[in-house]
C-alpha cells in the first residue's frame, strides 16, 4: 500500500500543477484574441438609433457591466475568486444570463449524446479490432476496411450523409432537433419516445466514425501481443487457446483505455458537428458562438470543463492502470 500512496501522491501533485497552468491559460488565451466583445452586442442595440451619444452610452454601459474596463490582473483575480465559488460570471452574448445557467441547460444534451456514443463506438471498435486480429478472414479484409473508410470521413460528411439518406430521402428518422418539432417537453412516454427517435442519427453519426479508429489500434496491439513470446510459450505449455486469448486482449486493451479517457475528456467540444447538423440542443454551438462572439466567461468556463474532464479521466485511468497492470505499479514502486 505504501507504494500506491507514493505513486498517487506524485500523480495528484502533477495534476494540480497542470490544472493551475490550464486555468491561467483558459483565462488568458480567449482575451488575447483580437476583437471586442462589446461591439457585436452594441451593434445589435444600435439598429435604428440615430443619436451617437446614446449609442456611446450603451456601449460604455456594457463595457462596465462586463468589467472589461478593468486591468487584466484584476479581471483574473475576480475570475478566480468567483470560479472558486462556482460562479463563472455573466455571459457577454447572452447577457444577462449567467454562464452557469447557460451551461446547466445545455451540457446534459451534449453529455447524453456524446458519452454513450463514445463508449459504444469504443466498445464496438475494440471488439472489431480484436476479432479482425484473431479471426482474420472477412473481418480483417472487408469489415475493418469499411469502418476504417468511414472513420476517415470528416464528421460533418458522415452526419450530412446520414441526414440526407435516412431523414430526407428515406424519411425514417427526423432531420433535426432533439425532440419532435411540435412536442412540448414533459415526462410522458410519447415525449421520451420522441427523444429516443431524434437521438438515433446524431448518435450513430458519432459512433460510426469512432469505430474504425479504435479498431485499427486494437487490431495492431492484438497482433503484436498474439506474436509475443509469452503466447508462444503458453502454447508450448499446452494452455488452452481461449485462455491465451484472454491474456492477449487484456494486454492489448491498455493503450485503448487511455484513448477512451482522452476522448471522454474532449467530448464537450467534440459534439459540435453532430449538434450543428442535426440542430441538436447542446453545448457545442454555445461554445462556437461564444468563441465568435468573444464571450470570454463562456469560453473560459467551457475550456475549464474540458480541462477538468480530461484531467479527471486521465487520473482515473492512471489509478485503474495501477490495478489492471501490475507492471506499471511495479515500475512506480521502484
Amino acid at each position, binding site marked *: 500500500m505504501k507504494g500506491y500512496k507514493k505513486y498517487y501522491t506524485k500523480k495528484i501533485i502533477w495534476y494540480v500543477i497542470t490544472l493551475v497552468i490550464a486555468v491561467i491559460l483558459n483565462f488568458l488565451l480567449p482575451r488575447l484574441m*483580437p*476583437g*471586442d466583445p462589446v*461591439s*457585436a*452586442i*452594441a*451593434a*445589435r*442595440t*444600435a*439598429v*435604428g*438609433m*440615430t*443619436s*451617437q451619444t*446614446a*449609442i*456611446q452610452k*450603451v456601449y460604455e454601459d456594457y463595457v462596465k457591466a462586463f468589467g472589461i474596463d478593468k486591468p487584466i490582473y484584476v479581471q483574473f483575480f475576480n475570475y478566480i475568486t468567483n470560479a472558486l465559488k462556482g460562479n463563472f460570471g455573466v455571459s457577454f452574448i*447572452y*447577457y444577462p*444570463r449567467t454562464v452557469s445557467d*447557460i451551461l*446547466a441547460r*445545455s451540457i446534459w*444534451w451534449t*453529455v*447524453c449524446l456524446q458519452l*454513450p456514443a463514445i*463508449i459504444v463506438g469504443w*466498445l464496438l471498435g475494440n471488439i472489431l479490432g480484436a476479432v479482425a486480429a484473431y479471426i482474420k478472414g472477412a473481418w480483417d479484409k472487408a469489415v475493418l476496411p469499411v469502418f476504417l473508410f468511414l472513420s476517415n470521413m470528416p464528421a460533418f460528411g458522415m452526419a450530412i450523409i446520414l441526414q440526407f439518406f435516412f431523414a*430526407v430521402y428515406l424519411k425514417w428518422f427526423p432531420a*433535426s*432537433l432533439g*425532440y*419532435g*418539432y*411540435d*412536442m*412540448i*417537453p414533459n*415526462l*410522458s412516454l*410519447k*415525449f421520451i419516445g420522441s427523444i429516443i427517435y431524434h437521438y438515433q442519427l446524431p448518435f450513430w453519426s458519432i459512433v460510426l466514425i469512432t469505430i474504425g479508429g479504435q479498431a485499427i489500434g486494437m487490431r495492431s496491439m492484438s497482433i503484436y501481443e498474439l506474436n509475443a513470446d509469452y503466447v508462444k510459450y503458453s502454447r508450448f505449455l499446452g494452455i488452452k487457446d481461449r485462455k491465451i486469448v484472454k491474456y492477449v486482449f*487484456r494486454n492489448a486493451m491498455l493503450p485503448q483505455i487511455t484513448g477512451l479517457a482522452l476522448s471522454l475528456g474532449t467530448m464537450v467540444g467534440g459534439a459540435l458537428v453532430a*449538434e*450543428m*447538423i442535426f*440542430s441538436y*440542443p447542446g453545448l457545442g*454551438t*454555445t461554445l462556437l458562438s461564444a468563441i*465568435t*462572439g*468573444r464571450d470570454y466567461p463562456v469560453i473560459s468556463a467551457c475550456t475549464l470543463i474540458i480541462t477538468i474532464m480530461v484531467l479527471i479521466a486521465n487520473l482515473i485511468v492512471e489509478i485503474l492502470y495501477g*490495478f*489492471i497492470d501490475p507492471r506499471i505499479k511495479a515500475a512506480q514502486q521502484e
Partner: protein
Amino acid sequence: MSNRLKKICVFLVAIAMLASLAIGCNKTETTTKGENAGKDTTSSDTADKDSTPRNETLYFNGQQWGAINDWNPLSSNSNNALGVTQKDSSRTLTYETLYMYNMLDGKMYPLLASGDPVWNDNQTTLTIKINPDAKWWDGTPVTADDVAYTWDVNVKYESAAGADYSNYIDSIKAQDASTVVISAKLKDGKTINPLKVLEYIPRQFVMQKAYLQKVEQRNGNDATKMKTDKMDDLVASGPYKPYVANDQKVVFQRVDDYWGKAASMWGKLPVPKYIAHNMYKDNAAGDVAFKAGEVDVSQQFISDVPSMIAGGKISTYLPEAPYNLGATMPTAWFNLEKPGLDQVAVRKAIAIATDYDQIIKTAMSGQSASFKDVPRSIMNTTPGEQALVDQAALKTVQWTGNDVEGAKKLLDQAGIKDTDNDGIREYKGQKLSFKAECPSGWSDWNASLEIVAAAGKAIGIDIQTYFPDANTFYDDLSNQNFDIAMWSPSAAGISNPWTRAFQLMSSSYNSVKTQMIGNFGGYSNPTVDKLLAEIPATTDQAKLKAAYTELSKIYLTDVPSFSLMYRPELFYTVNESVWTNFPQQGSKSEKGIEIPPYDLTDGYGIAGLYTIKLVNGK
C-alpha cells in the same frame, strides 16, 4: 482480472444508460408558462399537453437563434425575437405598440391607440388617444398613464430607447386617462426632429404601470437590475403570451380574451392558437424543416426559392422574381480616409464597374430587384419611398453597373494610371490596393464582395476580400479600420428614408470614435447636413421630394458608399401545406388595408394572422 475489466465496461455502459435517461429528466427544467399567467389560457379542446397540434400552430424559422434571455423590453439584449423586438415595425405578438407601421403606404395604423396622432399647429406636441377597449392580460384597461410611465421608466433607467429618444422627446404625459401628450424637445423654439418623435410611437412597447412598479420594487429601483430583470411574470396586452421557452423552442399561446377581438380593433382573435419557433442551428437545417412542412413561415434567405415555388406548396410575397419587396440596400462603404479611396474617381470607378446583375443572379439567386428596374437613389423599392424621389432628375448620375470601359476612362481622366505596368494603377506613387470585408459565413454578402473584387481587378484596382468573424468585423467597421466594408443602412419605417439618408451621409458621426450606426467611412458635406436637418420638419410633399432628390444626387455623385442589391427587411417564404391565404401582393385586411410582407408578426404585417386559413377546413 478479465472479469474486473468486464465489470468496468458494464459500469461504463450503465453510466451511459443512466445518462441517456437523464435527457428525459432534463426536460423538466423547461419553463412552461401559461397556467399561472392568467385566467385566459386554459382551453378545453387542446388538453393534449404533449404537443402543439399541427392545425392550431403556426411554425416559424429564421427568427430565434439560441435560447431567449428575457421578456424585458428595457433590456437591449433579450435575444427574444418573437417576444421582444422593438424596431420601426415592432413585433406585437406579446407586447403592443400604440401604432403599427405599414411600409406599403408609409402610414401608421392604430393598435393601442385610437385614430391618428395629432400634431399641434407649430409641431411641438403630439396628441394620441388610447383605444378604450384596450386591456392588459389582467383585465385592467390600458391607459395614458401606462404610456407616460413607460416613457419615464425608459428615461430614468437609461434603456437604449430612453437614451436615444430623450434627445428628441421632452416628456410624455397623460392629459387624462385616454389622452397622451408627447412634448417634443425644442431648439430655438422649434421641434428638434418631428420624425424621431413620430418614430417612437410604432416602435416602443407600452408597458403596464402597475407591473413596472412591481419590477422597480423588487429591484430596488436599480438601473442595471431593471434592465436585466427577466420579467418572466410579464403583464402585456398582446394576443399571445409565453407558453414554452427552452433551448430547443419558444412557443406562444393565444390569449383567448385578447382585447383586440373588440370591433374597434380586429373584431376577432388571430387564427393560430399557438405560435412556435424551433431553433435550428443554421439555415440549412431550417430549410430542410421548411421543405418538410414543419415550418410555415420562413424568415431565412433560401437560395433555391425559384425551384421550390415551382413545386406548388411554397410561395412568396411576389409570385415571381424578385419574390420580395426590397426594403433596404446592403451597401459597400468606402473608408474616405484611405489614400486612393479619398478620390471620387476611384470610388465611382469601382461602383460603376461592379456587375450588379451578376450579384443579384448569383449571390441573391434573383431575389432582388435590379438597378435597371429600380434605379439607384437613397430610396428602397417600396412605393411610399419611390414617390419621394424624382428619378428623372437623377438619370445623369445613376449607373447600372458592369461598365468596365467607363470606369477605366474615369480613372484615366483623373490621372490615376498604371505607370509600372504591373496591372495595378497607382495614386501618388502608391498602388491602389484595398481590402473588402464583411463577416464570414454571410455567404450571399461574401459572394457579392467577390464580385466587387473582380470588378476592381478588371479596372486595375487590387481588391482582396477579407471575411473575419462577425466580432472582428464590427470592431473594424465601428472604428473605421477598413478599406471597403459591407453593411446595411436602415430599412423601412416611419422616419425613413430620412434615417437611412442620415446613416449614409450625416457628418454628425465623424466626431465619435466608436460608432455603429452609419457613415462609417467619415463622409462630410455641409449641404447634406443642412438638408438632413431640414427634412424632418418639412411637411410639404413637393419640398420633401426636392430635398430627397437633391440628397440622392449628391450621394450618387460623391459615392461615399454604394448599394450592392435590394433586400427585404425580413425574408418571407411560406409553406402552404397546412395553412394558406398568407398575405401576398394585393392581400388586404378586413378593413381593406394592404398587408405588408412582414412575416405576420411585425408592424401592420400582423394583420396576416387574422386572415390565414387552414388548407383543409375552417
